[in-house]
């Protein structure tokens, strides 16, 4: 069973971002729970809707911080968000036809993406923000 935990390695030191990442991870765990329970794909819809909604909120939030502090890596970071947002939307469209394996693969993709994104992309944003006095 995969449970995605928010640990020290994911802590970036900018409180608002860390809080949002925790919630993001919470939604991913909800999806794992549903899969564990063997819920049918209709059940993921609800979780995926929440996840998608939250992803958009989180991406927009980070981007608004980047604009506010004129972050030089804004365009790249936003592109990175966009690619994942596209995949979220795209998966949403074919979810009802998806098998449990498809779903598992998708949630795993999202989990890997988020972990990697926090450690590689968001971490740079966080250290930039900290240098501007945001904590």
């Amino acid at each position, binding site marked *: 069973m995969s449970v995605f935990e928010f640990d020290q390695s994911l802590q970036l030191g900018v409180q608002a971002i860390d809080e949002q990442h925790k919630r993001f991870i919470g939604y991913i765990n909800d999806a794992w729970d549903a899969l564990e329970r063997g819920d049918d794909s209709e*059940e993921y*819809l609800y979780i995926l809707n929440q996840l998608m909604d939250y992803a*958009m*909120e989180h991406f927009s939030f980070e981007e608004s911080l980047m604009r506010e502090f004129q972050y030089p890596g804004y365009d790249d970071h936003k592109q990175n968000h966009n690619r994942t947002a596209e995949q979220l939307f795209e998966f949403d469209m074919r979810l009802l036809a998806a098998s449990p394996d498809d779903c598992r693969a998708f949630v795993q993709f999202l989990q890997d993406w988020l972990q990697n994104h926090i450690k590689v992309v968001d971490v740079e944003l966080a250290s930039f923000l900290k240098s501007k006095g945001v904590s």
Partner: protein
Amino acid sequence: MKCSVQRVTVVSVNSSSKKPELRPLNASDVVVGEPLSLSVHDAEGHLLLAKGSMIRTPSQRQRLLSRDLFVYNLAVDSAAAVKPAAEGQEQRPRRVREINVFDWLDQHVAQLTKIYDDLSKTPLPETAAGLRRMSIELQRLADLHHDGLLGAVYLNPKRHSYAHTKALHVALLVNELARAQGMSKETRWSLIAAGLTHDVGMWQMQNDIQHREAPLSDEQWQQIRGHCESGIRMLRQAGVTDPVWLTAIEQHHERLNGKGYPHGLEESKITKQAKILAIADVFAAMVRTRGDREKRMPKDAMREIFMGRGEDIDSTLVQLFIKKLGMFPPGCMLRLVTGEVGIATGPGINAASPDVEVLVDRFGNPLARPLYRDTTSKECAVKEFVNAVPHPELRSLLPGLWKMLPAA
């Protein structure tokens, strides 16, 4: 099919010299499943929701309580009702007529039709004044009946014309966005007026092409490219001078990346109000069928808007828009995982789970009356959009989905 009936309620109004005092609405005043025992007012004492209005859902109650609303002190009210002659007070009944949200839509489409006609022919100062009045009233109503009004313009059961319903839709959306941005009432009035008239420079053409699939002619393209400027010319002729109103219309097709029209302005030159008008305009256009393209489901429209954030449309506004409107805005028709089909009546706790009133059961049988579903519970989650609610009495059931409004 039964047509909608206008309900008349008689509310007694206290007309003593010693006026009863307003106090904030508190939690015990609002009980789910019961009619309001007191009329609800805004801070200036304007009547927003008449005594006796039903509170149907927990989230409706929550929304009421989350706003700055007031009631007149019950002590004074009831004392006066029992002893009308006491302290020289006398009771004079005043009729507060109530209409449903679809009546509101009919009336406002009719008003706008007259206004657009006047603007196209002989614009008079009273046309501009009429728009002002309409904006002020719309802002006042929309602050309490936002979901119902949005639901009505979205569903548009009588198929009123594209241009007029879209203008009302945009007016409601800009009001909500501007309010969420903390803009003053005055600015919102201007912005609502801009919403009502943003496409007045090409409304006839819009209605002409609503049902036509042919590609646009050169002349039509020119009209589109010029509609921001021709629109404000028409308004100026009617005596409109409000710079917020006029600038918002002039700039509502400008885009952050400078690729908009008519001036190709860069981001910093576009006013916040124009940016608000732009996002509302894009959304309201996408969710409507036009001759040359199918309407999009709201979620799909949101996706489009989200993907354009920062390029076309202000990101902060996009974020706010999704949060305020949700992926399932009022009026959209949905199937739940239970198999039931119904209509979203308002935002639930989050964007992914609206309040839904079910009208068709899971076997496809029409229900005699709407059934509330809390879609935050997994068992009743939203499954998908549907194009229609297969209910033979749908038109007569729709008005009951939202609160009644005081008539103008």
